[in-house]
């Protein structure tokens, strides 16, 4: 299984995802620069956190105009998995692959640390390895982590079971309905503010993020066995 890690100018944490996927999990991973096009050769696309374009204008807004975005949309429409974490989630919202927008944290300051989130939906290709209701400890770091969706969208997200993770420790940044992660209608695009790639080793941030990556792999293996 081969992962693409999109690299936009200024995104500092591409290395975090690369390390998690390649060094810890042992999968194939490759950086894809924002000026490239064509992602067909990959089995999954990961969009890292960081501050693409310095978060100027608003986080993710400038990445929207990058050349790679059309390929990313095509990749997502093909049904293969796309995961955006932190700033990657913000980019997915900006380009319309996921609903919602991001406001500055309720406390108006950048916050980082470990947060507790609950797995609300295990019927996705990202969460099959978790138990429903399982509580995870996952690092986070953001200034615009206050996820906003309007009432109708929340209702729709709930009805279609697209809220994958919710905050379980006070939702300090003020996200609508304590949402920490959502998937698109097809269920193959996940955006989340907590950073599972920073929780794949006991010595660094714990291992609660591991099942997420393993779920992606397991799903891919099953599908590829079917198609073989």
């Amino acid at each position, binding site marked *: 299984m081969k992962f693409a890690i999109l690299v936009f*100018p200024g995104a500092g944490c591409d290395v975090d995802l690369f390390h998690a996927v390649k060094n810890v999990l042992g999968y194939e991973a490759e950086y894809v620069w924002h000026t490239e096009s064509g992602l067909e050769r990959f089995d999954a696309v990961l969009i890292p956190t*960081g501050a693409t374009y310095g978060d100027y204008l608003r986080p993710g807004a400038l990445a929207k105009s990058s050349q790679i975005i059309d390929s990313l949309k095509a990749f997502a429409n093909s049904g293969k998995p796309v995961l955006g974490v932190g700033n990657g989630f913000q980019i997915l919202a900006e380009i319309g692959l996921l609903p919602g927008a991001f406001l500055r944290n309720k406390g108006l300051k950048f916050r980082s640390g470990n947060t507790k989130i609950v797995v609300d939906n295990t019927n996705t290709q990202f969460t099959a390895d978790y138990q429903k209701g399982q509580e995870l400890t996952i690092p986070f770091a953001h200034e615009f982590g206050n996820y906003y969706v309007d009432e109708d969208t929340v209702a729709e997200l709930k009805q279609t079971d697209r809220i994958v993770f919710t905050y379980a420790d006070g939702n300090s940044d003020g996200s609508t309905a304590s949402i920490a992660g959502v998937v698109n209608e097809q269920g193959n695009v996940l955006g989340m503010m907590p950073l599972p790639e920073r929780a794949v080793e006991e*010595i660094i941030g714990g291992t609660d993020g591991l099942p997420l990556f393993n779920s992606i792999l397991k799903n891919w293996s099953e599908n590829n066995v079917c198609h073989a």
Partner: protein
Amino acid sequence: MSAMHEPNAQQIIDEKLYRQMGMTDEEFDRAVNMLGRHPNYTETGLFSAMWSEHCSYKSSKPVLRKFPTEGARVLQGPGEGAGIVDIGDNQAVVFKMESHNSPSAIEPFIGAATGAGGVLRDVFSMGARPVALVNSLRFGDLTDARDRYLFEEAVAGIASYGNTIGIPTVAGEVQFDNCYSKRPLVNAMAVGLLNHEDIQKGIASGVGNSIIYAGATTGRDGIHGATMSSAEVSVEKEGELPVMQAGDPFLEKLLMEACLELVKSDALIGIQDMGAAGLTSSAAEMASKAGYGVEMNLNLVPQREEGMTAYEMMLSESQERMLIVVKKGREQEVIDLFSSYTINAVVVGRVTDDKMLRLLHKGEVVAEVSADALAEDSPVYDKKSEEPAYFKEFQAAEMTEPVVDDLHATLKELLQRPTIASKEWIYNQFDTQARSNTVIAPGSSAGVIRVSGTTKGLAMTADCNSRFVYLDPETGGKIAVAEAARNLICSGAEPIAVTDCLNFGSADKPEVFWQFEKSAEGISEACLKLNAPVISGNVSLSNEVDGVPVYPTPTIGMVGIVHDLSHVTTTEFKNAGDVLYVIGEASLDFGGSELQQMTEGKISGRAPVIDLDVEAVRQKELLTAIQTGIVQSATDLSEGGLAVALCEKAFGAKGLGAGVTVSGSPVTALFSETQSRFLVSVKEGDAEAFEKTVTDAIKIGVVTESDSIVINGDEGTLIDGTVTELHAAWKGAIQCLLNSEG
């Protein structure tokens, strides 16, 4: 000001215009003599910036020469952008600390942000990838609105730069005292890693090689910043201050990636950051270090504003700019490399053999000055040094114990002192885990990052208790080094080298210079004793408000090697039933202590005594015990003494408390700040081995599975509190102070 309206050489003399640039009459005469003629306005500017304290170390050099700078691991000592220390496996750690005090006193957000940005450039200009940031901060005690503003904005500024560029902040320290009111200290330290073959230097060598300017455009911001930083802040004079330079961490991220790719190319000859005194210092220093000259055509310098003069371009401190020397004929590939990161890079000049810094602008030679004269031949002053009257008085004072009525209330109050209280409010604003190598994030003794691809780690810390330095500079200097080393030891690391940031008042005051000299002596002695040579540093003089100097604050940034990540040790208790040991006994040491400041509203008397032999032995023994795997948790005793350290060990642990027994005077046993002491927890089964390894260990109690902190004395219970209550007081104290009014 356009060049046409610039004063001519005669006017500069007649109106003594060099004085406005911070030069004395003697310094100007010296420049005239070296030049063999009268300098024009631009040339006067070059001399004044390069001979500022910030660039030339003219007042501090004779003292700095005393620092031990050599050691088996040292690959690059002071003199380059940052120092370099070997860590084995063909890798080396590169680090440096810098002050951004003056800018932070005026515009705290951008002042602090550009401090982080500048020191990062110092590290990546050596060819190293920055892997961690550390900061050391000083503010007034937060009872004044201006100080709260400075504190909040400076922290946000550092956070903004580090978080945006994606480098984790893994350690830091902050002290609050009203000697820093309106004159904060903002010291930023960057740590990088490189392979030996990638080490770069800031040199301009090889006649005909090209000088390339890369990065942001040059604007009128920060002109004469180097001179300004060597002047004190006067609140009334704010209107006279130059336009502050702002930072762009996004641009720096791109610049950094481009430079780190460039260092792999054999087209590169030398590279240096345009820091203080911008284009002037980078060009003059690179030429001087290499023994060559540099000729630049300023028409080619990318400019942000119209009509800039040579003077303005040379003195600008616009951020995120690098000066690069590449082999003749290889220019285009370097320009293309930068261009792939959307960074502007242009050839602005060439290396010459005449050792001159020659500047052309609009077809004319506008400056022609010996590079050595600028970079090497600044005046050096043996400043007048005089022991201040207070020192004798304090030394003669009788040692007393602060008067305490209620031990429990005093402990709680100490935990709420901002210097002691939880620093969560600060470090929660930093991305501490970016790049996925942070093994210990802020909140323990030191920050630890993993050296990727190895089983080793790097521990780092910054420390200085300036109250001790004020009371007794030599002892305080020793304590600063020893405390930094203790923090590394407690984290499982062997200290390997030091960077310093020497923040003092005006060196023209003999009493201040005496503090400077004495503390440097103390630092030198401790660095020698603890095998941690000084490999880089920074001097910041004139930290005064309306003529009153801050406490002498020689901040020590120290890096250590964790030889195996299994040695990593943290502050908090691990298991109920573990045995608690204190290493070293308490004595009557309250001079400069937090308790003294709290109860008396000022500090006085003698700083705690430190015996470096005892210190070295205890550190060595404790590190051996940690490396043997028989230590569960370790912390050094610092502000607030044993009682505070005991609480901090319980705060980080879930559901664990402690029961201990101490002897002697309760106030001394609980709160004394006697040096070279540690508090350690050890599994019961390892107690015997621990006692054999650590000679001065005294068993004082056990870790309990409870919510209580109980400290018994010779005549009954001294403290009986709940972890919950004490923790709440400690945790929320800084936020509480920030919410206050007045």
